[in-house]
């Protein structure tokens, strides 16, 4: 892909843990048909039921859904899922890489690790969303996305299944939007329309 085309892409990174699955499925359902974005999902989950999530997501979108393999090319209008038991990193603007180094916040994949990597690689073209969870993972990542000029959305802890994770982020950093899950797709549509 030509460099200027890459420069116009948006990078939508979504982190979720306990209680986030329904929200993620709903978000994916409401994504524009061609979002001109790379969608990256980091979800805490068990190692053994990995292909189920890809199937669940694929039912709800026409966009291709891929669980990332080592050194996989980053393509627009594709939904990428961090594989269980690996951290997902951005190796180059057009390339993912994986890592099985130490867990972060007892998690691998860790939301912080991917958010930080995405923030460093793509700066103000990133939209970060942190959802329900019972873990402190993602807070530092949200702060990094915001610091790098990205747009940050946190699910309103009061309306989240488990408010702990989004609250951790709000305690650490100011964010651009705090919304109930149902209102996130509408905001995304506006954000993705502005190129």
């Amino acid at each position, binding site marked *: 892909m030509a460099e200027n085309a890459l420069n116009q892409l948006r990078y939508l990174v979504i982190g979720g843990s306990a209680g986030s699955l329904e929200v993620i499925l709903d978000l994916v359902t409401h994504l524009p048909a061609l979002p001109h974005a790379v969608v990256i999902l980091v979800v805490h989950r068990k190692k053994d039921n990995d292909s189920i999530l890809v199937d669940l997501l694929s039912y709800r979108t026409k966009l291709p859904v891929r669980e*990332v*393999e*080592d*050194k996989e090319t980053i393509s627009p209008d594709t939904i990428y899922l961090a*594989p269980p038991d*690996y951290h997902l*990193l*951005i*190796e*180059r603007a057009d390339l993912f*890489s*994986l*890592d*099985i*180094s*130490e867990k972060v916040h007892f998690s691998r994949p860790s939301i912080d*690790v991917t958010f*930080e*990597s995405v923030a*460093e690689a793509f700066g103000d073209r990133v939209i970060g969303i942190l959802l329900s969870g019972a873990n402190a993972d993602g807070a530092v990542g949200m702060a990094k996305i915001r610091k790098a000029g990205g747009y940050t959305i946190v699910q309103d802890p009061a309306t989240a299944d488990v408010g702990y994770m989004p609250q951790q982020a709000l305690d650490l950093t100011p964010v651009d939007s705090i919304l109930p899950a149902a209102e996130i797709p509408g905001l995304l549509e506006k954000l993705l329309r502005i190129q």
Partner: protein
Amino acid sequence: MIQDEDLNLLLSELSHRYGYDFTNYARASLKRRVNRLLAVDRFASFAELLYKVKNDPDYLPHVVEQLTVNVTEMFRDPSLFRTLREQVLPVLATHPLIRVWHAGCSTGEEVYSLAIMLEEANLLHKSLLYATDINPTVIENIRRGMFPIGNIRQYTENYLQSGGRKDFSSYYQAQYEWAKFDERLRANTIVATHNLVSDRSFNEFQLILCRNVLIYFDKELQDKALTLFDNSLEKLGFLVLGSKENLRFSPIAASYTQLENKEKVWRKMR
């Protein structure tokens, strides 16, 4: 996060002064490792780390250990080990002497896992297991055969899922916070340092395992390592990679066929 220029300075120092070449390691991960080293050893700045590396050769093994990832477990991905047990070991059994290479085996959890399976297939007595890693410090652990007792519950679960039928606790003795594995499991294991970047092939094998090592290399270095494995593998031998690694786009792909169940096991066909 450490800047590219700083990383290049450090890599150049490690390469020229000590012969450890990390220049073709995947950058995103390597930067995190350097950051971690800075934090773990409480350096106030990158310059202090660089000074230490330049002036203290005794610090080097620690740097190499920290820059590489030494996370491994026994029977990690049990379905892969089940495939080895059911489809690969029966083929190896036909050889009078079975030679196996665990490349980049870190602290040796998978070496012991395979040794247990070979033992259960009554093949360990005629097997030679070469266990190599870039880190002189971590491979010491293979000789000791001691793993943290806190991990044993997970390993036991993995072992059972891989098709193991014995009482897993018969393979180790609990010693405070360690599980010490039976010495007979490593009787036929040869432990050595080997750097996939700079060292050559040293034998011919029927089975090579290199799992979650190539993910830390860039494409060029991956191809180089895979060619090294190809040169070290007998015809009809098996190559085993990590669950997210692939042979598909490599120069050796044409000579290999992946097992039908899509586990990351390839057979050398020519």
